[in-house]
């Protein structure tokens, strides 16, 4: 099929049209400040030790097994450098370089262990990367003070808005399920925690409140970006987003999640929005001529957006319900969707010399690692590989590892997660579906647990 070069040219010219870089600058400042805050929290809360240095075993990512924590003080130095880069990003000093350094170090920290995966950490990494490849220092930066403020191509906003839209839209689509919309789970479970709050506690501890908040959350996620982009609904949408994220921050233990999201949505406001708040911060008066974007830039931008669409949809290529199997769960904006608890025992058998042991405790794992592993099949496989490797190092051959794994999803009774006969030491750590995962109705606790 022939393409329309004139159409492509028009798109390219439209994307290259110069617009105010103030909104981009504000996003850069916010991302830098959140990154700085998170760096400080990592040190202040002792996470450098407890999450990186103390564990003797890490759940590494397939293909990134070489990513390991640096020894001792070097991890602190790395976090300090990460914090400095975040500060530099916020100030706009060598903005793109700062974004690249912060993004690389922050991503490195998260790559060390799967147990540390958080959606808002992933988003911070993506935003840092995008700020590194866009003229993020065009406004409100030391760079701009040195070189003068510049306009930026409209395409920069399109790219970043598409990224933010992916987050919200896929988060909203993921909420279109019976648990969320019909049962109000897992919000019902989480809201019950606040039953003892004065005045609102009794309200929060109701099915109606859980359903109301579930539907509100779903609608918020699905429509907040278009409502922010449309000037006529922008004010109301912004107010709704602030209320929504503040409520989440107050009610649930989500750390800087709300801050990251509130920072991200500012890119959906009018490009010059910060100037309303900063008197005298007039933008550059002489717009640059609009040079159409090159094919390479267009292709890269389109590929990035396509990737961000495909990744959250990849779970469709796996059998089973993603909230149960977790195959395709990460990097897909499936935010606050599940409450899981799990328990897993391993059995290790060797053919030669003949041996069989049960692994009922895992002292080499932190409480977080144990908890994360118990509900996530790929991490159970990772640990099975670790056990098998340990036994092979001790001279055993023909090593098999099986798991007796049970999980509760959104308050339901425990169900068996994996085929207890499957040899997990032989299971792939790659992208292939894990055939050992059982459907959630395969094996249920046999004692009545609901109703009274």
């Amino acid at each position, binding site marked *: 099929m022939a393409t329309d070069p004139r159409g492509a040219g028009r798109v390219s010219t439209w994307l290259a049209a110069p617009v105010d870089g103030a909104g981009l600058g504000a996003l850069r400042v916010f991302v830098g400040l959140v990154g700085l805050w998170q760096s400080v929290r990592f040190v202040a809360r002792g*996470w450098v030790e407890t999450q990186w240095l103390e564990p003797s075993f890490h759940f590494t990512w397939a293909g990134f097994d070489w990513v390991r924590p640096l020894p001792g003080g070097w991890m602190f130095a790395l976090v300090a450098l990460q914090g400095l880069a975040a500060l530099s990003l916020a100030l706009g000093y060598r903005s793109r370089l700062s974004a690249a350094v912060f993004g690389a170090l922050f991503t490195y920290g998260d790559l060390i262990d799967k147990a540390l995966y958080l959606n808002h950490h992933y988003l911070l990494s993506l935003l840092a990367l995008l700020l590194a490849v866009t003229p993020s220092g065009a406004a409100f930066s030391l760079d701009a003070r040195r070189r003068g403020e510049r306009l930026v191509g409209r395409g920069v906003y399109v790219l970043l808005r598409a990224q933010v839209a992916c987050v919200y839209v896929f988060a909203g689509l993921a909420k279109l399920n019976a648990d969320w919309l019909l049962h109000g789970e897992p919000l019902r479970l989480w809201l019950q925690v606040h039953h003892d709050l004065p005045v609102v506690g009794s309200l929060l501890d109701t099915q109606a409140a859980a359903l109301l908040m579930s539907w509100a959350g779903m609608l918020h996620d699905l429509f907040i970006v278009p409502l922010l982009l449309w000037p006529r609904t922008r004010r109301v949408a912004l107010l709704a987003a602030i209320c929504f994220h503040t409520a989440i921050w107050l009610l649930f233990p989500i750390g800087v999640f709300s801050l990251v999201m509130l920072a991200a949505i500012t890119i959906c406001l009018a490009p010059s929005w910060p100037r309303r708040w900063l008197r005298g911060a007039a933008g550059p008066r002489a717009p640059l001529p609009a040079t159409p974007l090159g094919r390479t830039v267009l292709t890269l931008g389109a590929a990035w957006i396509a990737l961000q669409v495909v990744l959250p949809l990849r779970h469709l290529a796996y059998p089973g319900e993603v909230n149960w199997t977790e195959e395709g769960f990460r990097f897909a904006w499936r935010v606050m969707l599940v409450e899981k608890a799990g328990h897993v025992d391993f059995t290790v058998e060797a053919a030669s010399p003949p041996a069989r042991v049960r692994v009922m*405790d895992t002292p080499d794992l932190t409480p977080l690692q144990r908890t994360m592993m118990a509900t996530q099949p790929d991490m159970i496989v990772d640990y099975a590989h670790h056990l098998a490797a340990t036994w092979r190092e001790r001279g055993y051959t023909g090593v098999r590892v099986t798991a007796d794994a049970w999980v509760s999803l959104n308050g339901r009774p425990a169900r068996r997660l994996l085929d207890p006969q499957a040899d997990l030491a032989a299971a792939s750590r790659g992208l292939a579906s894990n055939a050992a995962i059982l459907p959630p109705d395969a094996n249920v606790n046999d004692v009545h647990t609901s109703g*009274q």
Partner: protein
Amino acid sequence: MRLGPKIDYWPARPVAIDAVLAADGPITAGALGAPAKGFSAVEYLLWGRGGDTVAALAAEPRRCEYLGVVIADLGAQVRALAAVWDPTGGDFLGELTEAGERPTRYPTLQAAFGEVVNRVGYLIENIRTNKLGKPLGVVSGGGPQPDGVESPFSGRSLADLRANLVGVRRVLLGDGAEELGLDGYLRRRGRYLAPLVTARLDAAEAALDALGATGLTLAQAVQTEPAPVQALLDRLGELQRAVQVDVIGALALTVGFNDADAD
């Protein structure tokens, strides 16, 4: 403060205790390592030789002196433990019950609650792994290890297990009072897990009864009649699953990244 090993270090190390008995110098609690004092040392000093314990003590003044030192130290450690919990002392009780209302080590009552329930799960795991699995040989894979049972000299291993289960039952189901215990809280939240937890506890206790009915001590059973020990291990596994999966899942008490990060 790590009072646990000072009070109940086990398995006992007779070698460490015998070394103290064989020495000449004065016996002071401060000079004794954890393996040479606490409940295990008291048990070994009283029952370790078998036969007529009182006569043995009368015949061995140093053994008697050692016992006095260890019991006095044990009393001091237990009082220290009580003081840690006492509202007029360390008030760890308040750390749990007033979490969220004032600065404590737990930022919210939910976090404190989660700690208690998770500890019940860890207790059951400890019973399975250390009190049964290791002596039975299923953890190490090297055959039975009867010396690894708890309270081997007094033959109280099964009684210790029963005491553990009594504690688990009281925390989970209360002590017969309607609203005490975890079950009362669960019921008020509309999560009625008592049938499951009760069934699992009953099954574990029945397995313990069956083991006791063999007339063997645990140390003997792991060597000569392992099947009822294995059955108890399995029932405890089901109980642990009920606590760590069903109960924790129903109350959203899962341990997070920390007290303030998840999504």
